[in-house]
C-alpha cells in the first residue's frame, strides 16, 4: 500500500518534470525565460559551492527568524490582552482588521527612506508581517475557553495570576503555535520579497543578480533554495511545536 502511494506520488512528480522537458524540446518554452530543467538541476548542484551562497542563506534565515521573534514578543502579550477582555477586543477590532489587510511590503519605500537599506529595515518589515498572524491566533486562543472551565475557575475563585498562567495561557498555546507556524512561512516569503526589491544580503538578492547576469537557471535554483528554506523552517517549527504541546496532543488523542 505504502509502496503504491510512493509510486503514485513519484508519477505525479515525473509528470511535472516530463511537461517541463516537453516544453523545452518542442521549444515551446523560451530558454531565456524557462531554462531546460537539466540546467536548473546542475545550477542547483553548483550554487551551494559559491562563496555568496552561505551569506545569502544566513541573511534570509537570520532576518526571517529575528522578525518572527520580535513579532512573537509583541503579538502574544497583546493578543492575550485583547482576547481576554471583550472591551479591549471590540475597541481594537477595526485597527486589527486594518492591519491584517495591509500589504506590509507597501511600507518598504517609507522604511527605506527612514531606516535605510539595512538588515534592521528587512527585519522590521518581516516583524510587522508576522505580527498579525500571531496576534490573530492568540486572540482566538484566549477567547476560546470552554464554558465548563470558565465555570470551574469561577466556582473555585482561582486568583487571576494563577488563572492566567495555568488556565488561559495553556488553553491558548495550541492557537499561538499555529500563529507562529503561519508566521514562520510568511517570514521567508516577506524576507525574500524585500531582498528582491532592495539589495540586503539574502536569496532574493542572489536571484536578482543571477537574472541580471543572464544566469536564468541559477536564478531558478536560488528561488528553489528559498522555497526549500521555507519548508525546512516550517518543518523545524512543527518539531518544536510537537514537543511543546505534547500534553495537548495526548489529551486530544485520549
Amino acid at each position, binding site marked *: 500500500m505504502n509502496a503504491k502511494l510512493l509510486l503514485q506520488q513519484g508519477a505525479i512528480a515525473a509528470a511535472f518534470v516530463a511537461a517541463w522537458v516537453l516544453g523545452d524540446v518542442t521549444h515551446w518554452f523560451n530558454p531565456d525565460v524557462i531554462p531546460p530543467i537539466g540546467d536548473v538541476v546542475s545550477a542547483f548542484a553548483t550554487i551551494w559551492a559559491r562563496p555568496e551562497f552561505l551569506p545569502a542563506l544566513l541573511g534570509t534565515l537570520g532576518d526571517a527568524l529575528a522578525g518572527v521573534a520580535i513579532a512573537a514578543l509583541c503579538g502574544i502579550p497583546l493578543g492575550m490582552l485583547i482576547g481576554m477582555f471583550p472591551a479591549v477586543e471590540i475597541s481594537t477590532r*477595526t485597527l486589527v482588521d486594518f492591519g491584517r489587510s495591509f500589504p506590509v511590503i507597501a511600507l518598504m519605500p517609507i522604511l527605506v527612506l527612514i531606516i535605510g537599506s539595512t538588515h534592521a529595515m528587512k527585519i522590521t518589515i518581516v516583524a510587522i508581517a508576522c505580527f498579525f498572524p500571531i496576534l490573530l491566533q492568540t486572540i482566538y486562543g484566549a477567547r476560546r475557553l470552554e464554558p465548563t472551565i470558565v465555570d470551574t475557575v469561577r466556582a473555585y475563585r482561582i486568583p487571576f495570576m494563577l488563572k492566567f498562567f495555568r488556565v488561559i495561557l495553556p488553553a491558548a498555546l495550541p492557537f499561538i503555535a499555529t500563529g507562529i507556524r503561519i508566521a514562520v512561512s510568511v517570514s521567508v516569503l516577506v524576507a525574500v520579497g524585500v531582498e528582491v526589491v532592495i539589495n540586503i544580503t539574502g536569496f532574493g538578492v542572489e536571484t536578482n543578480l543571477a537574472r541580471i547576469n543572464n544566469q536564468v537557471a541559477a536564478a531558478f535554483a536560488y528561488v528553489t533554495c528559498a522555497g526549500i528554506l521555507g519548508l525546512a523552517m516550517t518543518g523545524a517549527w512543527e518539531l518544536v511545536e510537537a514537543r511543546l504541546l505534547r500534553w495537548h496532543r495526548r489529551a486530544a488523542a485520549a
Partner: protein
Amino acid sequence: MNARRLKRFVALWWLPVALVAGWWFLSLGRDSFYFPSLQKILAVLWRDLTTGNLLAWHGISLGNMAAGLAIAIVAGTLIGLLIGEFEGLRRAATPTLNFLRSIPPAAIVPLVIVAMGIGSAPKIFIIALACFWPVLLNTIDGVRGIPPQLRDTVKAFRIPLALRFRRVLVMAALPQIMAGIRIAIAVALVLMVISEFFGASVGVGFYINEAKQRFAMPETWAGTVLIGILGYVLSALFLRLERWLLAWYFQDSRTQGDEGA
C-alpha cells in the same frame, strides 16, 4: 435597537478615530522631512487623486489585481474540486503541490517581468500564480471536509457526475473556497504592489516607488495611506459578500461555533 447599534459603532470606531485625530493634531505644524503632517499627506493625496493621474493608475492596478484573482479563482477552484474529490489523486499530488507552493512568488517577479515585458500581462500572471495556491488548497480541504452522510446520499440517489460537481461539491466546499479567496485577496494586494516596483510606468506601487526615488516623502506616505485604505475596503467588502453568499451556512453552523481564521 438603534441605541444599541450606535453604541456598537462607537465601540468599534472610537480608537481608530482617536488615533487618526491624534496623528493629525500632533503632526500639525511640526513638519519634519521624514514625517510630514497628516494634513500635508492628505492634501497631496487629494491633489494627486483629483488632478494627477493617481486615480487612473489606481484603476489600472485594481484591474490587474481583479484579472489575476479571477484567473486564480477559476483555475484553483476547478483543479481543487478535481483533486479534492479523488482521494488517490490528492495523496499522489500532495508532495509535488507542497513543493511548488513553497516557491516564494515575490522572488520570481523580476524573472517574469524580464520574460513578459513591462505591461499588464506579467503583473496579472504573477498575481494569478500567487493567488492560485490559497484557492486551490482551501478548495481541496473544503471538498475533503464534506460530511460522509452527504456523500452517501449522493451515491444512493445516483446523482450524475456533472450535477454532483455543480450542485453538491461546489456548494458544500463554498465556505472553505471563500476562505481561500479571502487569503488570496491579501496575497494579490502584496503582489500587485511588488510587481509595480519593477519595470512599471503606471500603478499605485509605481507611484510610491517613484516618489521614494525622488525623496518625495509626502507622496510616498500618501501612496502608502491609499494602499492601506484600499486593503481595508477590499477586505470589508469581501466580508459583506461572504456573509451574504453564505448566509445559509452561518445560520446552520451557529450552533456548532464559528470557524477559526
